[in-house]
């Protein structure tokens, strides 16, 4: 059944509309809004173009930061449209409203493991609609029932007569047909591209050095901008020597800059920018500024004070994020009470590409080249700062040298725009590694106390959870930080009495999203504590979890699968201990088994392997899922073993990779990934692999040695200390 779509209706139901027109290059499937004459304000949506030479160009509205979205999204369209994969190319969609995230179309950004998850259905429908129109066009030409026609590899076939036409010859006729309102989506068994490990489209350029990241942009006549920013939180410029900076050969401008406010923090890193003909001249100019800074707002802030405040928070009354049943009563009646405290540090993103941004602000036009996860926020910021109209602002997206949440913030774009506006010349602003760490917005530190009641049968009857963390994500109308309590308000285990309280940690340290966000700390505390409870109940950690997941088939399923694949319960070869953890985040279920051995003399832990099972519902590219799980586990264990931001004298003390260590090759380990063949609701893949990694390893260390690691990072010193307490 086909009918002409009603724009409003289609929008409401699917978040996008389709219409067709013939363009010189072929059939263009795009939004009804684009041809609409009424002015309701909705902008058109264009997902792909099919040209007469059968080339499919998919407009990708998500940024590529290593997660494979530039390959996964066109796979979806190509499969439903039935085109040959070899004839697919992509374009990064421009920052224009028609490409904003459906179904709301209010912003354009990439994050929250939402690329495939949010585009799966819109792109399938877009592809399927095109396929039906092309099939109908062929059926009309041949004067045969459409039901006798099939499509494959960019052609329509009529089997009975043996006729066949390439899509390219059907574009004009197809474009005159009404757009199917509700095209038939393929059954999974009909997929020819999805579900296959398709090589990524961006990899050849990344192997040849041709891939353009933000820092690789060159604009004719471009200057280089560097910024001297507050050395400690809240410090203001008191004096500086502009003349000395200007006297440095090559220096052209000295500009005051500011930073936008950061929610949940009083921090700013106001500063002075120096623009010069070369980067080295800009740095020399900056050195010559000789800035005198005010002392800052919290001169006593240090690693020790932060850690102390986190622990002290555990004694404070928190805000109740959840209160089910009678926790105190159940604790009072417990056969056994168990309590533990966990401490997690502030973490830096440390993306390999330091922050940078190139801008050219002109009287009637603003161009911005930026490796960002949030193009529309940058566009909005440019509109605000320059006073130009949105259509005069061009945000050009490059590849991202990792995003990890850091590139969702606009501070580095905002700063570059301020400079560009002041100097009215193109300028590339580059941060050094030291600046990238010092002016990062961190993964929040966290202290947690969990108390639970076990009954005689070893079932958890009460769970009391207090989390101390700074605020950065409070929804309107709520007083609770959604990230501090993420995964806790919807604890996956069936426990009758649960309370969750959040104590706000107050300090000026800016925080933001960091791969898996709140789940990066709550996954560790929940899954470590479940292990402690299993031990207290005298049960196997896997059995204990499953016992509390009877109504949660998907988490139950990945735990069973990973246990089976890892040989849970069987003897180990090489490793000394094995630990398990499972966690739900970003609508996906991930469980992992880690195998470790521990050097009792040095406290060094060797991870022999991690086995991972993931249920993300329908999956598009299994090789990318493998890579994302491997990457998330590696990052999770980099943090778990090595990372902690150091503070001193009111600011950041950590400088570079010699004192903010990341995991290196000698510490890496094989990761085995098993993907559940699932038709269930779709989940994300970029982040959910991270939360279970650290607890699986900590639980494995316990299994190997009896030492319980409750403080991250698990440095050799921490491990030795825990071993002493066994």
């Amino acid at each position: 059944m086909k009918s002409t779509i009603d724009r409003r209706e289609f929008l409401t139901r699917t978040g996008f509309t389709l219409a067709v027109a013939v363009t010189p290059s072929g059939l263009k499937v795009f939004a009804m809004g684009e041809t609409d004459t009424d002015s309701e304000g909705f902008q058109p949506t264009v997902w792909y173009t099919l040209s007469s030479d059968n080339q499919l160009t998919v407009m990708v509205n998500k940024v590529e930061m290593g997660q494979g979205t530039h390959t996964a999204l066109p796979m979806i369209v190509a499969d439903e449209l039935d085109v040959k994969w070899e004839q697919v190319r992509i374009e990064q969609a421009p920052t224009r409203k028609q490409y904003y995230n459906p179904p709301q179309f209010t912003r354009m950004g990439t994050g929250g493991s939402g690329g495939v998850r949010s585009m799966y259905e819109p792109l399938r429908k877009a592809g399927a609609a095109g396929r039906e129109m092309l099939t109908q066009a062929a059926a009309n030409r041949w004067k045969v029932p459409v039901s006798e026609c099939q499509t494959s590899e960019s052609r329509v076939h009529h089997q009975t007569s043996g006729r066949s036409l390439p899509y390219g010859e059907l574009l004009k006729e197809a474009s005159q047909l009404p757009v199917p309102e509700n095209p038939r989506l393929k059954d999974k068994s009909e997929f020819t591209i999805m579900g296959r490990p398709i090589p990524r489209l961006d990899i050849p350029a990344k192997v040849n050095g041709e891939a353009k990241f933000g820092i690789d942009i060159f604009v004719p006549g471009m200057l280089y901008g560097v910024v001297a920013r507050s050395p400690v939180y809240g410090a203001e410029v008191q004096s500086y020597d502009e003349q000395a900076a200007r006297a440095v050969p090559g220096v052209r401008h000295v500009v005051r800059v500011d930073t936008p406010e950061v929610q949940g923090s009083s921090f700013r890193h106001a500063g002075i920018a120096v623009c010069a003909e070369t980067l080295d001249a800009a740095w020399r100019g900056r050195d010559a500024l000789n800035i005198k800074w005010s002392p800052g707002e919290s001169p006593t802030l240090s690693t020790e004070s932060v850690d102390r405040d986190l622990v002290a928070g555990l004694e404070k009354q928190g805000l109740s994020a959840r209160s089910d049943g009678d926790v105190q009563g159940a604790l009072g009646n417990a056969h056994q009470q168990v309590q533990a405290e966990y401490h997690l540090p502030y973490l830096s993103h440390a993306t390999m590409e330091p922050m940078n941004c190139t801008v050219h602000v002109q009287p009637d036009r603003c161009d911005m080249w930026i490796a960002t996860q949030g193009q529309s926020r940058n566009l909005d910021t440019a509109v605000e700062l320059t006073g130009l109209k949105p259509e005069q602002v061009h945000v050009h997206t490059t590849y991202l040298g990792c995003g990890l949440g850091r590139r969702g913030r606009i501070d580095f774009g905002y700063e570059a725009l301020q400079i560009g506006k002041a100097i009215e010349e193109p300028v590339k602003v580059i941060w050094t590694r030291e600046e990238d760490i010092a002016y990062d917005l961190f993964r929040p530190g966290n202290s947690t106390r969990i108390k639970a009641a076990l009954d005689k049968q070893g079932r958890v009857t009460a769970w009391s959870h207090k989390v101390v963390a700074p605020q950065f994500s409070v929804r309107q109308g709520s007083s609770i930080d959604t990230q501090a309590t993420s995964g806790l308000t919807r604890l996956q285990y069936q426990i009758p009495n649960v309370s969750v309280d959040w104590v706000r940690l107050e300090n000026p340290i800016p925080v933001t999203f960091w791969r898996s966000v709140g789940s990066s700390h709550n996954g560790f505390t929940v899954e470590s504590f479940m292990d402690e409870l299993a031990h207290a109940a005298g049960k196997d950690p896997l059995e204990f979890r499953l016992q509390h997941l009877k109504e949660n088939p998907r988490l139950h399923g990945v735990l069973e699968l990973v246990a089976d694949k890892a040989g849970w319960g069987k003897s180990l070869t090489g490793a000394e201990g094995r630990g398990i953890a499972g966690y739900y985040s970003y609508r996906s279920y991930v469980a992992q088994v880690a195998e470790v051995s521990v050097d009792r003399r040095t406290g060094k832990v060797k991870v022999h392997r991690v086995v991972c099972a993931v249920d993300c519902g329908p999956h598009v590219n299994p090789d990318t899922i493998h890579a994302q799980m491997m990457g998330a586990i590696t990052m999770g264990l980099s943090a778990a073993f090595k990372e902690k931001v150091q503070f001193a004298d009111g600011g950041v003390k950590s400088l570079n990779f010699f004192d903010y260590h990341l995991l290196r090759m000698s510490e890496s380990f094989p990761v085995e990934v098993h993907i559940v063949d699932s038709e269930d609701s779709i989940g994300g893949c970029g982040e959910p692999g991270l939360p279970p990694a650290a607890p699986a390893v900590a639980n494995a260390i316990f299994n190997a040695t009896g030492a319980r690691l409750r403080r991250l990072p698990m440095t050799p010193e921490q491990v030795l200390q825990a071993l002493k307490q066994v």
Partner: protein
Amino acid sequence: MAQSITLKINGQSHTVEAEPDVPLLWVIREYLQLSGTKFGCGIAQCGACTVHVDGQPMRSCQLQVSRAVGREITTIEGIREDHPVKQAWIDIQVPQCGYCQSGQIMSAVALVEKNSNPSEDDIIQAMEGNLCRCGTYTRIKQAIYQAAEEVRNS
């Protein structure tokens, strides 16, 4: 004072006006716009800027441009496309964000050209200085084994 400096990069001669103490990295990247070589840390802690100088892998952020004069410099752009290391990187689908991979590949090329049968320890020794935040280490190792085998068989 800026001076005229001539460098031989990927077999070609390039002349720039630069201060003699500017790191080679910035001359390659920003003066000559050979942007495949990446800036990661500026202090030889991450390996993103690795190039070959007279066949040896070096961190270009630590080599003053004046000291690179008269030497054979090779960047990622100078490694042939069908080099076994580049091929293996594609076959194994190593890169994720890709930012560190030029440096990884330069370290790996230097390794397999010197030792076409590297042990795991040899690989770690050659690659330990190259950081990857995306966590591609396991695939890098796999790709090096494959590339080394290719070199051995050729």
